[in-house]
């Protein structure tokens, strides 16, 4: 389920099972808005996410660039999702746990 909340000094974003093009179009604006106003580091919690498209990679890139590389992390990334980040060459430049 999509949610944005502050927890343990971080802005934590959770997502639905499939972050495809339509889901990204639905949520991108709010993410951009919240990240631009946040003072805290940002975590994308991908627990339960099993599918991402390039639209989601773009959201991650944009968020990491806006927040700063050392203030953005991704947690609970499933192997099939990690594979997409790896193919796109983003595994090494985004903090994926």
């Amino acid at each position, binding site marked *: 389920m999509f949610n944005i909340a502050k927890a343990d000094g971080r802005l934590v974003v959770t997502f639905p099972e499939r972050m*495809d*093009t*339509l889901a990204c*179009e639905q949520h991108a604006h709010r993410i951009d808005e919240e990240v631009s106003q946040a003072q805290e580091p940002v975590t994308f919690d991908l627990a339960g996410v099993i*599918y991402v*498209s*390039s*639209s989601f*990679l*773009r959201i991650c*890139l*944009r968020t*990491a*660039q806006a927040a700063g*590389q050392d203030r953005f992390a991704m947690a609970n990334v499933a192997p*099939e999702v990690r594979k*997409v980040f790896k*193919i*796109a*060459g*983003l595994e090494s*430049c*985004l903090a994926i746990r």
Partner: protein
Amino acid sequence: MRSIARLESPALLENLPRFIAVVSDAARAEGLGPQKTGSVELAVEEAVTNICKFAGQGTPVSIELSCLADGVMLAVEIADDGRPFDLTARPDPDLTARLEDRPIGGLGVFLIKKVSDRVAYERRGERNVLRLEFRRPAGA
């Protein structure tokens, strides 16, 4: 190869789930397995999204998607009557660039090339025809 599924629909993002459902069912029916089925869904989503966003430039575009299979491979042909676009000719993004230098766009086409076993493009008359091939994994 035999035709196993076909869908023709306007190139609108709201129709994307219908295209994905067709190829997902076809991949499962051909026994491609969950990982390969995910690759089929991803490649087709990226290709159809590109057409919906860029092929028309204000003019209505139609997409015809066909699934063909021979027991060894699933081929997905995506034809559209939008402006000519050969994604196989697009240069790959620089994957070594630093995060702050990475362009936001261009990853969709790259993903199509990487998750498909073969990608071919041809301009047939007034239509773009993109053919994506996916081999059945060994043991599947």
